[in-house]
């Protein structure tokens, strides 16, 4: 259990970053993090070595399941944490961030997933290839194309 605790702590933020960009939905992403770890622990707690690729694969499936279900409406998170910081900076950050998040949602699921997997900043191309079932060489090319595509979407003002 000690091992799982360490694994949980070191993986949760990266996994959340991935799920947030995949879904574009804060609450859904929070739920899916919990769901993914639960599934991981429940089915694979005996595999010995903690596997990040496996965790992401599970999270990916959980996200796909969620896409098939009717969307749940949530309240927006409150801005309590923002009040401590510079309000103008925060509003600007928030707008920029929302613009990027909206732009990713306009991309195809494949490109979106590539960028989402990278946004946690803890997976290698090899691991990403394993999760998405494509070759590492393919990841190199596709990641770059996805980034260029995102740049185009953003420079078109999100349209």
């Amino acid at each position, binding site marked *: 259990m000690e091992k799982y605790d360490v694994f949980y702590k070191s993986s949760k933020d990266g996994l959340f970053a991935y799920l947030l960009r995949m879904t574009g939905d804060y609450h859904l992403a929070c739920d899916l993090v919990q769901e993914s770890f*639960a599934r991981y*622990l429940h089915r694979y707690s005996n595999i010995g070595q903690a596997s990040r690729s496996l965790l992401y694969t599970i999270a990916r499936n959980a996200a796909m399941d969620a896409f098939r279900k009717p969307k749940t409406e949530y309240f927006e998170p409150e801005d309590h944490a923002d009040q401590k910081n510079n309000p103008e900076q925060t509003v600007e950050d928030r707008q920029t961030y929302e613009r990027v998040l909206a732009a990713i949602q306009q991309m195809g699921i494949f490109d979106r997933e590539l960028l989402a997997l*990278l946004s946690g900043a803890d997976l290698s191309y090899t691991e990403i290839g394993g999760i998405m079932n494509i070759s590492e060489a393919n990841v190199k090319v596709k990641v770059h194309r996805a*980034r260029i595509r995102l740049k185009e979407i953003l420079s078109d003002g999100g349209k």
Partner: protein
Amino acid sequence: MDYLSSMYIDNELNLGEKVQFIEKIRSEEEFFQETVGLLKQEKVLRTQPERLKLLIPAESRIRPSLKRWIGNLFRPMIYVGSGFALAALFLFNLTPELTDATDQLTTAGRFVIFEPAVSRVELTGTFNGWQRMEMKQIGTTGYWELNLRLPAGEHRFAYILDGSRRMADPTHPAREKDDFGGENSVVTIPLST
């Protein structure tokens, strides 16, 4: 080899590729501009506003406010937290609310458990003939709760995680093995006066 800039961003360049990258940056203005643009874009993409951080409270963060919140509502008899994400909390309110005849025989009980990494928690016990009762999630805090009125006497109960994983309350010391190799928590509700 345009994707060298993405490999650079993702720390995927080997030494040979680093040489190529540096030479390309130096000789091609367009490639330089593109790389800078993509780097900045990636920076924005990976920065997360504070308010959108993952909301699964660390124990240290949740405890003081939770304690206060509980303090306002209940007089906890048992309140022990364990040191891990599976920490659970069980508490009982022994102040009977005497509103009608039935209530005189029961005591308001509140079951709370901290289980951030599951999608469903149910409560089962002798007080409901071992039927499963859905616990409600408290927002996105990772806590689950259920309020019940319990008759006086000794009760056995357990939590069921994700529909299949059965677990005694990990923070409640009184336990008893059942006939199937599992464990139940045991709680005694005194007769209310």
